[in-house]
């Protein structure tokens, strides 16, 4: 565990908070797996288990005015951003009470209140959006940051290169966060990239870039603070490559033919949650009954979310064509006119 705190204040309460958030994401998704088996959650389900330090670390550096653009593997990002667990769970059920009225499901969590611009399920599809959000901020003189999160696989798409170039060329306030978990479905990074050091791709577009240990929440938080401070100060983009690993299959349909159990076990030794627990315990910051109490509270929060989703409603079929275009009388429509 890197205790390099730089200017970040890492008091006990804060660190315990990081642990709690990571645990919430982990337990939430473990519950999702059960609900998937029970047929309550359908479609694609992409788990973030193993990668929690990244969402939690990065979100610490963002303020409520900042924006987030994410991918289909976004439950952790949404929870760490403070999107309600209830609304996320209801979305996964497909209920009207969900973040997106149930229309999107697991891959498409949107929340205007926290400026969470979605789960995008087209690889690299979110990068140009983030560039546009940042462009609007720059043009309107707002000092806000747009954090754009995507995977290592996205780095092979044209949209990745075009977006990095544009953000650097126009000096736009985007924090690019590449969560490099070393696989795009079954394709290992080294089989997809001639240059596997992804931060160097960003450097070639003349933007500051660094790689960080994505299994260490404190390291991620420290790097994210440094990156966001640079974006706020210079107005231009910054690139973080978070080196991490997904412990579970790509989705619920993946038989994992492409990697060995030993490799997964090796990475599990770096599990960010026990890693922080151990560190806190050794530093005398985590007491014997802290963890069970935390687990209990988290379990209650998740069961509350499940109950909320269960009690939610199916949208009436008569409303099928709703929200395809903006109805007359809506303020957005008047504003556009």
């Amino acid at each position, binding site marked *: 565990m890197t205790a390099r705190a730089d200017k970040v204040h890492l008091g006990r309460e804060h660190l315990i908070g990081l642990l709690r958030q990571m645990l919430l994401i982990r337990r939430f998704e473990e519950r999702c797996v059960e609900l998937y088996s029970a047929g309550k959650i*359908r*479609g*694609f389900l992409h788990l973030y288990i193993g990668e929690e330090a990244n969402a939690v670390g990065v979100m610490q550096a963002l303020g409520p005015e900042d924006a987030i653009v994410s991918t289909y593997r976004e439950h952790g990002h949404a929870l760490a951003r403070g999107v309600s667990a209830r609304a996320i769970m209801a979305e996964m059920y*497909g*209920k009207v009470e969900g973040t997106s009225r*149930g*229309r*999107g*499901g697991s*891959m*498409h969590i949107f929340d205007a209140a926290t400026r969470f611009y979605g789960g*995008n*399920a*087209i*690889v*690299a*599809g979110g990068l140009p959006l983030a560039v546009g959000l940042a462009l609007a901020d720059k043009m309107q003189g707002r000092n806000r940051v747009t954090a754009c999160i995507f995977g290592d*696989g*996205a780095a*092979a*798409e*044209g*949209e990745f290169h075009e977006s990095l170039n544009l953000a650097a060329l126009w000096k736009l306030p985007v924090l690019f966060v590449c969560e490099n978990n070393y696989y*795009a*479905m*079954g*394709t*290992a990074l080294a*089989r*997809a*990239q001639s240059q596997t050091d992804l931060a160097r791709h960003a450097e070639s577009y003349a933007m500051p870039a660094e790689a960080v240990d994505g299994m260490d929440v404190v390291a991620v938080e420290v790097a994210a603070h440094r990156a966001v401070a640079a974006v706020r100060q210079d107005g231009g983009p910054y690139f973080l490559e978070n080196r991490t690993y997904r412990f579970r299959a790509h989705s619920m349909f*993946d*038989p994992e*033919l*492409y990697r060995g159990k030993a490799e997964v076990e090796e990475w599990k030794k770096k599990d960010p949650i026990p890693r922080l627990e151990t560190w806190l315990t050794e530093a005398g910051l985590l007491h014997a009954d802290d963890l069970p109490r935390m687990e209990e509270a988290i379990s209650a929060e998740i069961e509350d979310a499940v109950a909320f989703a269960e009690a939610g409603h*199916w*949208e009436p*079929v008569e409303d*099928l*064509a*709703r929200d*395809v275009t903006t109805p007359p009388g809506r303020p957005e429509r008047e504003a556009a006119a």
Partner: protein
Amino acid sequence: MTTTTYREAVRTALREALTRDSRTFLMGEDVGRYGGTYACSKGLIDEFGPERVRDAPLSESAFVGAGIGAAMAGMRPIVEIMTVNFSLLALDQIVNNAATLRHMSGGQFSVPLVIRMATGAGRQVAAQHSHSLECWYAHIPGIRVLAPGTLEDARGMLWTALQDPDPVVIFEHAALYNMEGELPDTAGPVDIERAAVRRPGRDVTLIAFGANLHKAMEAARLLAAEKIEAEVIDLRSLRPLDDATIMASVRKTRRAVVIDEAWRTGSLAAEVSARVMEQAFYDLDAPVGRVCTEEVPIPYPKHLEDAALPQPEKIVAAVKAQLGARA
């Protein structure tokens, strides 16, 4: 006869192509080590090696374009795009290059390329993963567009497509991969020109393709219980369309309903309907009916997705509306 699945039939066709023609190779995202997103190419990398079952990075435009280049230079590539949804990132290569190069070069270069992709909705994977954009491709002169809806066609269309000197796009509806059935041991290449009558009937013609063929067949069964005999046509080739088979049937039944999982506006159903009007107007007893997807991005919840898509009950209702219009 062997009991097999659509997925197995696709795999057998791929294996045949890789075995018979050393110029053929399969290229796409996760076709090798992952075994194919829909497991169509599972095991082929072990049989043919990573050169000929070639994993590509997430670069749809680049690897489709590379397929076009390799085809022009003497290879016979089979490019797999994971799904039609992601083919949008390669649309430029397909429309601006594959479809035009022969014409623009005054016939000097042709592009003997086969592109396969999964298509369709019905699996609760939400709007970005549920498109049915076959009609976009069928709009483009210079490419042939196929939609195998049966095991025979999944098994047999690929080899024939590879013999075509021009680009062929094959749409495999994702809902079909698990479909089980019997395939003769002698099954092999099939024609890719003609539509097929999958069920004879005299009262109405149902025109469908891909997975919706089976919804049309189900509707025909429901109608038969009410003594209405529907003839079911499987388009098979979406470009060019086999007008002769369609018109022969419509002239006989005097009524047609087109079933298409695309949105109604600008759909292939619109094209087929217009052709029937142009060529068989005076043989019709009722306006051509259409059962398409409602004009909404595909929603995630099952009850809304089901409501958005063509269903046998909707087809039955459309047929009854036709018969109600009987003079």
